[in-house]
């Protein structure tokens, strides 16, 4: 069961059975490191950053309570608005395209493909390397003024441009990089496709359903839980992407803030300017945005995700 399905099930039916708690001591002993981590490294810091969100704090002087000032500052911070826009564009363009490509390739690979393991490996490799600095470095060259893309374009007589140095196209290069790493969701789709019983297709063929129709009446409905899982996780992940924007823009989010991811702006505020109160407020806004999108996603899932059981 996936994380997503597990959470859904939890919400659905609270278990009626009464617990005897027979392993109380052993249970809490085995969970001791985790419990320490939960309180010390997760819950306490979360509370602390909630507090810091209402302060002015730069590490040197003690935090100074400023009430909602960080919030009013966020409302009027144009760079913040821009970074939200950049991030939303990246997430809501990149993730759907990436998922569509990964599903399409998985579908093509699934049925009776001889060299499946080979292709799967080749498509998976980029998603393994995609979040590394090395690939971001490569991207910066490939889409640079005299980079690989322009060299190829030159061969066919088209004059290229500096893709990463132009505010109009820099973000697109990062979206392309995101789509390039479609291998991970593809592997999950492949595993999901493998679970659809053949008899459904056999029955549909006997009934005279075309392949096209089978795709929409069998494959897609039965795959919706997997699509949902991939969608939730990829959205959450994409909101937090950092490395590529940091390296491709040299840490600035440029040109003209066109690749200023939310996380990059947060990093700049918190760890370049040490404006930790404001950065904490930003971090909480990020949590709220991601939670809201995830909740909406779960709510919408009632209308399109099929669960047999």
């Amino acid at each position, binding site marked *: 069961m*996936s*994380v997503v399905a*597990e*959470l859904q099930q*939890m919400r659905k039916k609270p278990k009626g059975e009464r*617990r005897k708690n*027979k*392993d109380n001591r*052993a*249970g809490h002993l*085995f969970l001791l*490191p*985790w419990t320490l*981590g*939960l309180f010390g*490294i*997760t819950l306490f810091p979360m509370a602390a*950053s909630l507090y*810091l969100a209402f302060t002015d704090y730069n590490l040197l002087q003690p935090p100074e309570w400023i009430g909602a000032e960080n919030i009013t500052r966020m409302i009027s911070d144009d760079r913040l608005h821009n970074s939200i826009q950049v991030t939303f564009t990246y997430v809501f363009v990149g993730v759907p395209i990436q998922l569509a490509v990964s599903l399409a390739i998985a579908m093509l690979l699934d049925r*009776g*493909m*001889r*060299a499946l*393991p080979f*292709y799967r*490996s080749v*498509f*998976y*490799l*980029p998603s393994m390397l995609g979040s*590394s*600095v*090395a690939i971001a*470095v*490569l991207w910066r*060259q*490939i889409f*640079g003024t*005299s980079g*690989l893309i322009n060299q190829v374009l030159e061969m066919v007589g088209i004059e290229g441009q500096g893709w990463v140095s132009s505010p109009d196209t820099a973000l697109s290069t990062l979206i392309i990089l995101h789509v390039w790493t479609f291998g*991970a969701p593809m*592997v*999950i789709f492949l*595993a*999901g496709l*493998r*679970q659809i019983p053949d008899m459904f297709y056999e029955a549909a063929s*006997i009934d*005279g359903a075309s*392949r096209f129709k089978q795709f929409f009446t069998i494959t897609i409905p039965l795959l919706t839980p997997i699509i949902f899982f991939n969608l939730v996780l990829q959205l*959450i992940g994409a909101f937090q992407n*950092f490395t590529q924007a*940091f*390296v491709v823009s*040299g840490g600035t989010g440029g040109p003209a803030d066109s690749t200023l991811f939310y*996380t990059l702006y947060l990093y700049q505020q*918190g760890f370049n300017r040490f404006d930790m109160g404001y950065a904490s407020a930003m*971090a909480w806004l*990020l*949590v709220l945005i991601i939670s809201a999108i995830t909740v909406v996603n779960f709510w919408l899932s009632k209308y399109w995700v099929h669960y047999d059981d």
Partner: protein
Amino acid sequence: MTDSTFTSPTGAKSGAVTGTRPEKEMSVATASLADAATTGSKPSMRSVSNRERGIKATIKHIVMVLASLVMIYPLLWMLVSSLRPNDVIFREPGILLTTLEFSNYVDGWNALSHPFSHFLWNSAIVVFGSILANLVSCSMAAYAFARLDFKFKKPMFALMLLTIMLPVHVVIIPQYILFSNLGWVNTFLPLIVPKMLATDAFFIFLMIQFIRGIPKDLDEAARIDGAGHIRIFVQIILPLMIPALATTTIFTFMWTWNDLFSQLIFLTSPDMYTVPLALSAFIDSTGESNWGGMFAMSIVSILPLFLIFLFGQRFLIKGMATTGIK
């Protein structure tokens, strides 16, 4: 296509079967979800004639080969470019090498304040510390959640699931303050200690899934023989969950090796730089004048990942399938 369904259903069947893998592998594929993800294709019962099928398959292969080339080309080109003089990189989009130039590797290795081996070593410390920490702490937590019955288990489990999705940004600032008060900034401790406290909950989840698949009779038999939880965990569960431990090892390696964000925050002096920081500093210091050296060190930096890809792929794909499938 629909016509042939009625005229020759048997013909279609045999055509489909010849295009697939042996029966033996199929039984493996149906044995478990995770296995299904790693084995080959399953038979499809398409009502298409053999020849039509053959042509379609050929077209499909051509499309796939082209797609593979597009996907892999940037990587091949980076590898080839790392073996070329700097000026050639900017005018040669091809991947045919006429000469081999290893000077980029020598230049790149020594381009920063320390030889590149220094950064590789730092990364290795962080990575292996993280792996060890994750293996111990996550397997303990997973055993408790999967096998033991204790107070507050349900809310704790729910919290654990939620932390998987929690963005690190909301805890990183107080963590930074905490670790800097402890004097840990610019040491590897902030990168490893949280993992000793099982903060990578994804792996707990992965291991729980795995332990749930181990027959409970084994624990119970041991318990009747007088074994306590620690013995059951160490002597029965741990040896049986080696595949899950392998998956955890590989994922931790990959994520820690690639992680720029937290290393950027906690490691501030070049002496402590890891590979992602070194590469990032490289591109800052030489600007874009030394692509050859940069590519060479980039290749060096993804080499360990590539080795994992070659030898550990099975565990990667299995891990993703088990956590990704309902």
